[in-house]
């Protein structure tokens, strides 16, 4: 797990009020670079979400790592995406498979955002990332 996520987790865990936690998440979203319009293809759009969520996944053969770019038109989902990216971006397939996003979100008190009813696409994104890692680790 890379250091950035640890830092983010530390900040979030030290935000006792839920308002503060959301403020931090939205700040993360703000810092996440906007996805280039050319990558926002219909294929990249995660279906079934109330908000628009895009995910661009690529495998860098030379570096043997996943390249993940994501974006959303909502502040909260974009912030959650930033967290997911900090968990998985640039890792090798076996490193990705060793990280359980559900456990990490549970620890941060954000697990409700991975529930199916939220319809925010975060769960689908984690599943896509894991699926690619599994495929590439074969």
């Amino acid at each position, binding site marked *: 797990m890379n250091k950035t996520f640890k830092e983010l987790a530390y900040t979030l865990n030290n935000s006792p009020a*839920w*308002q503060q936690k*959301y403020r931090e998440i939205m700040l993360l979203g703000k810092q996440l670079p906007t996805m280039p319009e050319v990558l926002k293809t219909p294929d990249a759009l995660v279906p079934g979400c*109330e*908000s628009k969520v895009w995910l661009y996944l690529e495998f860098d053969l030379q570096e043997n790592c996943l390249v993940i770019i994501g974006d959303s038109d*909502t502040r*909260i989902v974009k912030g959650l995406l930033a967290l997911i990216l900090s968990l998985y971006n640039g890792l090798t397939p076996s490193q990705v498979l060793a990280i359980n996003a559900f456990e990490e979100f549970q620890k941060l008190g954000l697990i409700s955002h991975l529930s199916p009813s939220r319809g925010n696409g975060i769960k689908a994104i984690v599943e896509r990332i894991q699926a690619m890692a599994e495929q590439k680790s074969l």
Partner: protein
Amino acid sequence: MFTVEKIRNDFPILTQQINNQPLVYLDSAATSQKPQSVITATEVFYTEQNANVHRGRHTLSEQATTAYEQTRDKVAHYFNVQSREIVWTKGATEALNLIANGLTEQLDKNSSIVITPLEHHANIVPWQQLALKTGAKLHILPLEPDATLNVAACVEFLDQVKPSVLTLTHASNALGNITNLSPLLSAVKDFNTITIVDGAQGAMHLQPDLKTLDCDFYVFSAHKMLGPTGVGGLYGKYERLNALQPYQTGGEMIETVSLLQSTFRDAPAKFEAGTPNIAGVIGFSAALDYLTALDKKAVYDYEQMLFNYVVDKLNDIDGITIYSNLEHNIGTICFNYRDEHPFDIATLLDGFGVAVRSGHHCTQPLMAHLGINGSVRASFCFYNTHQDIDIFINALHECIALLD
């Protein structure tokens, strides 16, 4: 005399805490909460009365059948129509599908179907499918920029189209706007038009007298009328109703069956194939008792008072855009704050224990008409209070502070 404190005592869920704060439930347009009498009726049915209907000769089955059919009588009484004109379905969506499918053989390429851009997807898609199947032409009533129907323009439109089918919502689920039905229904009187009204939102808030309204069909969902989920139905003027082809076939709806052919019973039985949601119907019976015991006028006035109160409070907030019609409304307010995403607002409001809906509300054509992707919707019921609105508005101020 209407006392909201007394009413709230009847709804156990309203004492819930959400995120350690009192629940402020402003999503009754999605589903209403249930009074204790409905919960108890469902429980008692399964504990003491459970049996299938219209089948057994044993005591339990006869009791269940009686209670089940008495609820049909209650619905008929509620809408001032005949019991044989009420068909049970699992909700308004299924009821609309039942009607649209049942009309297949009555339409052809010379037919025309008129819908409005205000409709819920459930009152759009079945008609698109019917048009595809029959070759009928689908027409859209003109809608003003503020999402209201201009009666004169609509009447002129209907006069030109002379539709075979006209379907209208009684009240918009997204905006709460009440449709001025009478002039539109009158406008097609001479054209032998089959008229359908989507009462999913109107059935509880407006308690229509369907004999006076004089539409051919009216659909409703029990769960938006204090009843259980998975039950609803439709009213159909008997001749029109019985002329529909059955939507599903199977047990209960048949008269005789041989291996090569079957004959069907008359309405309503021919539309009720299979074992119905008996417990749901029994629960709905208690909901109807609850609704009819209320002073209709006092409830309506109270809901309007709540609505006017929330409108005033929202208008005080700089940057709020309201999309709902404020004069003719069942008590649903649809808004956005600047260009903030409704998802963010609804998620943050939930942190304050305030339940609202965000998104397109299954009305994508309406949202497109308004030039937005979605909105926040707060919908009220007579169990809400002025204090609920105060909490909601305070929470909204805090959300805005978090977003700005």
